[in-house]
């Protein structure tokens, strides 16, 4: 077989954490290889080694038979290796065009280049606003700029790290079509994903990683999903594979419960005067999980921020257990028992340079359980954190590691553990399963169910529709800053929800 890319014996450690363990790989041009694995399996680390962001401790990379040393991302670009990161790498203060052109030789930056960017944009059916800066873009559009940036660099090897996790359902199909076009043109595509159905649809072979090792590279067409799942999970029980439909969890009967949260006629204008939330009304009963579905960027994030006090609504009222909290401070809302798992765990959920135990303690540090004689008790902090680390299976199980040393899924568990403990009346979660693998998603969902079961109202905001449908007692669909419909997840069709998600405001109601 003509193997274009040959990776042999790659090792990489971060301090005590062994992220990659003797990784070997052969790949040819014109194929799409999915990389499947749990959070922390080493998928992103391997990708970062390929694009020169991390230097491997040992091992060799050969391209077309010649050994190459990818010592920097610039070198990677020279060799035609590009990557689209799960967490964006864009310059917020610049436009899409500037972001795409950064770092290119001057000869590739003229008017011709601008025309080609727009051509690529229409080839791939991407909607990108070229007049605004990246900070002003919704998440999905930022992702499209990232993709354009890689495409513009004429890559022969493209690594996609969870590329569809931020795309709207309607954008996924055209995107996958674009990827197939690339593969057909002879590009070697690595597709890091947790979504088995997508892997099925797009990949020729699947490479399964676990604990930094390659567990197997298998042809997708002839490998049952159950086997992929088993390899990915290792020796864990794999009774619940993706193919067997999960038994619907018993839903709480909350018909007689009191309202935990009532949001009435809330409007929010951005400084430019655009209406982000329009007369939004909803209620969450104690013990109920209200799912908010919708395409990314329709005001869901802002809704969570208005409820938790990060943003102040322009008009309207918010009540928690019958008490108005419309103008209460964030601290007061926390004291009232609102827990909040924000969308961006790196920027808002964690302080990455603090240890796991410090991250668990902060915002509650003044409570008696963390104090001894008026001073912070390191030992109490450590003991409480150790219990949580064990209960939430946070890996590596060392509360004294910096939060930055953990993988995305384990970081999310830290945030969740802290916020669940705080949520006595209401838990607001935004995209809690973003970038998480099957096992971690299930774990997070079960924790949230347990919270609701204990009588706490849960507002579950996510763009991953199947997760929303799976967990919610009721699902409210948001579009253009308002609730366009509330449905029962048991008795609804994807088509109905799709219509609600895309309905223009005039056509609704």
């Amino acid at each position, binding site marked *: 077989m003509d193997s274009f890319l040959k990776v042999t014996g790659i090792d990489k450690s971060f301090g005590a954490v062994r992220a990659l363990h003797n990784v070997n790989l052969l790949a040819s041009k014109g194929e799409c290889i999915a990389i499947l694995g749990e959070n922390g399996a080493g998928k992103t680390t391997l990708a970062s080694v390929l694009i020169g*962001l*991390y230097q491997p401790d040992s091992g060799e990379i050969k391209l077309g038979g010649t050994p190459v040393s990818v010592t920097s991302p610039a070198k990677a670009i020279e060799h035609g290796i590009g990557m689209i990161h799960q967490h964006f790498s*864009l*310059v917020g*203060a610049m436009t899409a065009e500037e972001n795409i052109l*950064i*770092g290119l030789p*001057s000869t590739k930056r003229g008017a011709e280049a601008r025309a080609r960017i727009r051509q690529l944009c229409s080839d791939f059916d991407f909607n990108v606003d070229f007049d605004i800066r990246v900070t002003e873009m919704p998440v999905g559009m930022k992702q499209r700029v990232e993709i354009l940036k890689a495409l513009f660099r004429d890559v022969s090897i493209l690594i996609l790290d969870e590329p569809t996790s931020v795309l709207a359902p309607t954008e996924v199909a055209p995107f996958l079509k674009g990827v197939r076009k690339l593969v057909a043109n002879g590009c070697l595509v690595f597709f890091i994903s947790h979504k088995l159905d997508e892997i099925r649809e797009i990949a020729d072979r699947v490479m399964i990683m676990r604990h930094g090792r390659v567990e197997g590279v298998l042809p997708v067409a002839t490998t049952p999903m159950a086997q992929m799942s088993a390899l990915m999970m290792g020796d864990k029980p794999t009774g619940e594979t993706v193919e067997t439909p999960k038994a619907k969890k018993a839903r709480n009967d909350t018909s007689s419960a009191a309202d935990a949260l009532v949001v009435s006629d809330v409007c929010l204008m951005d400084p430019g005067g655009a209406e982000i939330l329009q007369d939004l009304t909803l209620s969450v009963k104690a013990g109920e999980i209200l799912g908010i579905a919708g395409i990314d960027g329709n005001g869901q994030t802002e809704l969570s921020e208005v409820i938790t006090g990060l943003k102040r609504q322009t008009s309207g009222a918010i009540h928690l257990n019958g008490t108005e909290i419309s103008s209460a401070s964030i601290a007061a809302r926390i004291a009232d028992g609102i827990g909040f798992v924000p969308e961006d765990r790196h920027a808002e959920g964690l302080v990455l340079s603090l240890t796991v135990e410090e991250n668990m303690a902060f915002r509650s540090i003044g409570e008696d359980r963390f104090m001894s004689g008026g001073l912070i008790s390191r030992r109490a902090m450590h003991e409480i954190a150790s219990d949580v680390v064990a209960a939430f299976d946070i890996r590596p199980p060392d509360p004294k590691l910096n939060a930055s040393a953990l993988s995305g899924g384990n970081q999310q568990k830290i945030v969740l553990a802290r916020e669940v403990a705080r949520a006595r009346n209401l838990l607001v979660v935004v995209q809690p399963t973003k970038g998480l693998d099957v096992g971690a998603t299930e774990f997070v969902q079960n924790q949230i169910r347990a919270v609701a079961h204990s009588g706490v109202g849960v507002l579950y905001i996510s763009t991953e529709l199947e997760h929303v449908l799976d967990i919610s007692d009721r699902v409210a669909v948001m579009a253009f800053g308002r609730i366009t419909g509330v449905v029962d997840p048991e008795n609804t069709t994807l088509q109905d929800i799709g219509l609600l998600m895309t309905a223009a405001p005039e056509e609704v109601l």
Partner: protein
Amino acid sequence: MIDLVLLGDVLAGTARLGTPIAFAALGGVIAERGGLYNIGLEGQILAGALGAAAGSFATGSAVIGLGCGIICGLISGLLLGYMSIRLRINQLVGGIALNLLLAGLTAFLSRQIFGAQAGGARVNGFSQINIPFLSDLPVVGPSLFSQDPLFYLLIGVAIAAWFWLMKSHKGLDLRAVGENPKAADLAGVPVFRMQYLAIAVSGAFAALAGVHLVLSQVYVFAEGMSAGKGFIALAAIILGRWSPIGAICAALFFGFCDAVQFKLQFTSPDIPYQLFLILPYLASLIALVVLGAKASAPASVGLPYDREHR
């Protein structure tokens, strides 16, 4: 007519006193746009001043003095770059350390070079250049068009720096480094090379401030002659919104305040002159309070870039 003479004097003073601040501020803008604080401007002014004095003293040529000053600035800039980029030292601490080092080192070397006699040695400098026709204009002619060559160099360099930073491709790359070095790195920008370039150029510009002090103003090196200009320049960067042109306008505004206070010292001898001396600093504080709130610095300035940081 007396008022016009006064105005002309103040304008000439503005140009003369504002030029060193403007050079230093320009250097600061280049460094900060590339994501590096250059707190060492003050020390680099001294380095440039000593280099200019020594070069001119040794050869009798002001142009060679200028060259020596620039080389001293480049070296001091690269030293700060090594601390900030390679060693990832806190950039404020590194800059202060550089200021202390250069204050001591220039004082020591000046005694070695010029001997211990009071007042140092007088060196050859630049004389003013009268621009034909323009220098004959009333008021602005003698004040703005009869300046020394470094003032005209400042104007040229400022425009060039603005064009390079805001309009050229490499300038875009440098700004991307200052905003988000990881994004720039992934896009193929040689982040560290760009930062070394920026900090070296920054040091050279700061040194030009010192060169101006020695070769265009007093023709002698004096210990501590930078006298806080490097710190006023830091304020000018913020006031000028991290734009080369803006920073130079802000620096000239500080120069204007200084020129006014000199005039006031002469015209109001009854008032203690110390009160007038605080005027430029007061003006910079007020300007920062009034205008500074809206300013937005490059997003990653002061944060060392570590490629393998997770």
